[in-house]
């Protein structure tokens, strides 16, 4: 008997919705563990560990110093407590900060063929084929867009290290650099030096600072001016080792007029103990560039009694530095015991755009505190926030967001909509938006009612004889599908399950 079955489901929430939430939230099919020989750094965190990580990655001195600087700052900082999440105090000295498959430690494999087959098998089991000949040919969707096969370049990160990056050569032809961040530090120090830490400063917050000190690997992307990245880029994060924190760092730079779409997926084995994941993602969009960043976060959420699961404390931020640049965050958050994540956009360039689409599902004992920040600094900037939170079981789901219009951000526009759905009477849904409007030519709108869907569309539907509820459902569902279809194909399948969730019985 599961917790969901015991729950009283209220009238008006249809069975399909309940089933969908259950299937997403309850079975965790990625909970297996790979038996593989691992090499760890000693437990705990101190300057020596930071140096060790730096050394393992073969980093130059400036990088080591950068990390040490971050570590020293971190020791002065306090853990943030403002989020609506509760968890036992984390003992930061009781963690491994570096773990890598032993086969990777001896001699770095030169190509994917040399990678330990056990590792590759792990990724295949997860549905992430790394071998180029096995690249998936797209998922058949409803539309004709799927008819054409699509290629995806994957960077796979296993515990602390990147085990392989595919399609590097083909990307290189287009001038796109896609590699692990440790490789980038070695091969492209000028780019890393120029951009690393410029979006999320070293001492931005407790977890970002920790990450800056101990990040072990992650992905690096540079798309040169005017290049439309020929394929989707993807990183797949896997935590495998026990008591290991994963601290990945992603840096994506889209130079003038370029375009890149990046996907991120994450899973972890089922364990009784909580594991820490503190990532930092930095996006830089220069003039006319566009970055699309999609996440399906499916870390192990813990069991129904709240035992185990990943603590997901992530700092993600995009800097729309150039005029007319655009960043779009799409996230489907279904995993993690505790989520603390606010993908944000700094809209610095004139006419730059930020978008945030989020579906957050929390079930059983999960706690999610997630949202976004849209900081409008440039003129004529636009942002849009669409957030759907769904809570079931005893979960708590919080939307926390900031929309800020600075005095100089004339004629800017924001539209925010956040809807929450509660299934069962033991869960909670919370909304904590901050709105700061400091000029009068901008418009900020925050709505959280299902009745406030576009009146014109509603009117159109009503005119055709639908009742209000039907009309709202149609409009909202259509809208929801748009968000999901904005997800790249590979993720659409997983996310599609959520479409079944209707907005009936929703609260703002």
């Amino acid at each position, binding site marked *: 008997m599961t917790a969901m079955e015991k729950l009283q489901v*209220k009238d008006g929430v249809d069975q399909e919705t309940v089933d969908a939430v259950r299937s997403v939230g309850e079975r965790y099919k990625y909970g297996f563990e790979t038996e593989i020989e691992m090499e760890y750094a000693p437990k705990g965190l101190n300057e020596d560990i930071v140096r060790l990580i730096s050394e393992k990655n073969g980093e130059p001195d400036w990088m080591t110093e950068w990390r040490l600087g971050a570590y020293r700052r971190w020791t002065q900082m306090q853990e943030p407590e*403002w989020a609506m999440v509760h968890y036992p105090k984390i003992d930061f000295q009781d963690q491994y900060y570096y773990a890598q498959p032993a086969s990777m430690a001896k001699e770095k494999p030169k190509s994917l063929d040399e990678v330990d087959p056990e590792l590759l098998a792990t990724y295949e089991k997860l549905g992430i084929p790394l071998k180029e000949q096995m690249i998936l040919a797209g998922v058949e969707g409803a539309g004709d867009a799927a008819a054409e096969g699509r290629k995806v370049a994957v960077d796979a990160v296993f515990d602390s290290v990147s085990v392989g990056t595919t399609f590097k050569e083909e990307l290189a032809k287009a001038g796109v650099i896609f590699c692990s961040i440790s490789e980038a530090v070695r091969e492209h120090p000028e780019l890393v030096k120029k951009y690393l830490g410029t979006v999320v400063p070293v001492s931005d917050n407790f977890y970002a600072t920790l990450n800056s000190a101990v990040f072990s690997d992650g992905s690096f992307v540079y798309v040169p001016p005017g290049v439309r990245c020929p394929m989707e880029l993807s990183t797949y994060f896997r935590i495998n080792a026990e008591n290991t924190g994963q601290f990945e760092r992603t840096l994506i730079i889209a130079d003038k007029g370029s375009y890149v779409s990046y996907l991120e997926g994450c899973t972890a084995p089922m364990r009784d103990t909580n594991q820490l994941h503190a990532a930092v993602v930095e996006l830089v969009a220069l003039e006319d560039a566009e970055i699309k960043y999609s996440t399906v976060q499916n870390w192990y959420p813990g069991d129904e009694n709240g035992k185990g699961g990943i603590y997901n404390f992530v700092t993600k931020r995009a800097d729309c530095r150039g005029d007319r640049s655009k960043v779009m965050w799409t996230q489907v958050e279904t995993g993690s015991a505790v989520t603390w994540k606010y993908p944000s956009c700094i809209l610095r360039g004139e006419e730059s755009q930020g978008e945030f689409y989020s579906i957050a599902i929390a079930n059983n004992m999960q706690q999610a505190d997630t949202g976004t920040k849209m900081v409008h600094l440039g003129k004529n900037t636009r942002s849009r926030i669409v957030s759907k939170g769904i809570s079931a079981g005893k979960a708590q789901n919080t939307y926390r967001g900031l929309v800020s*219009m600075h*005095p100089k951000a*004339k004629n800017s526009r924001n539209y925010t909509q956040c809807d*929450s759905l*509660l*299934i*069962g*009477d*033991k*869960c*909670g*849904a*919370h*909304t*904590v*938006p*901050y*709105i*700061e*409007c*400091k*000029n*009068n*030519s*901008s*418009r*900020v*709108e*925050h*709505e*959280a*009612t299902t*009745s*406030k869907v576009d009146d014109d569309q509603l009117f159109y539907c009503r005119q055709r004889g639908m009742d209000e509820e039907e009309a709202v459902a149609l409009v909202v569902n259509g809208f929801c599908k748009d968000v999901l279809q904005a997800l790249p194909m590979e993720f659409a399948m997983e996310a599609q399950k959520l479409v079944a969730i209707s907005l009936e*019985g929703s*609260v*703002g």
Partner: protein
Amino acid sequence: MGLALEKDDPVAALVDRLSRDGTDGGWAAEARSAALSRLAGMGLPGRRDEYWKFTNPAPLTAAAAADVAAMPDETADVFAEATPLRLVFVDGRFDADASDALALDGLEIETLATAQAADIHWARDVYGVLEAAGQSPVERPLAALNSAVARDGIVIRATGQVTRPVQFHHRHTAASADCAVHHVIRVEEGAALTVLETGAAAARFNKVMEVEVADTGRFNHVRIQGRDRERLAATHLFARLEAESAFKSFTLTVNGALTRNECVIELTGDDATAHVAGACIGEGDFHHDDTVFITHDAVNCESRQVFKKVLKSGATGVFQGKILVQPDAQKTDGYQISQGLLLDDDSQFLAKPELEIYADDVVCSHGSTCGAVDETSLFYLTSRGISKEDATDMLVLAFVDEAIQEIEDDALADVIRAQLAGWLDRRRG
């Protein structure tokens, strides 16, 4: 926070500054000393407190406030048509000579000084009690400060349908900067009471009103805050609503340097309703903060928060609203709207409309918008031959009207509309 009083000079200095001589009855002395230890435990709010994110509490917590020139008394008669029982406070002290006699059908009414002299008094179950309950989950040290030091105020128990409203009118005559006033009101079962508030009170005014409404009781509250430009004010309205009771509060604020109006309501009985609304218009050095916290603790209750802010020439409008729906408060209907109208580019509107919901069978919604006067509407009006200034004023009045409509009595609402129109006229000279 959490400092002991003797070590914490700012608290002691403020308590000292606000304390006035007066007799101290048994129950009141206990309540005051309990409030004082609450305050000592909390300390004064600071800039880093999340609850004061948008408003700097320093002017309200400083040991001394600057004197402010006395204001002409102009709002005493605005509600004359409603023939209120008028009670006058001069610089925060009750003035019996200037006031009507303390007697009205359906009411037991007395001053706080009289009430505290009685050994046993119903007010002891309300004075500082609702305030103390309102300290969780968010601390409100300025309210505890008030409970600890206030000696002036009115104690009202409504036992029937009171036909005339009771008006608290404040006059500011001396430069004496600080004052603290504390009213205690209980509306008994089936009774109804309207309380009006007018006038400029002091350079720095700290006011607490605690209202308990018993089953099926009705309480209406309409307040016009003084026009004194340099005023600092921290007011708290604590209410506890029992079954099927109804509570409505509306506040009009024009000018004032720093105003923080907090409203803390707990719906403890089924089928109760609470409406809190506010309209404010300010220009220049004007900072207005409406902070509302409504807790739904019972089934089938309704709450509404409607706040409109018109801001000009560098004025700042703040709204922090919260609807907390406790696990068993099913069938809750919660609504919250906060809107800022910025008449020029220097003003700002800051909002934090929060929902915290632990029950599933509820309808809660909130909206918050901010922007300039609608160009299309302005064009429409000017194309009909209305001057741009008149058109803007019309749109401003239309904008705030949604909040004014929350006033139960239409005649009182019209008084507010007239006040607003008058203010807009004067502003244009």
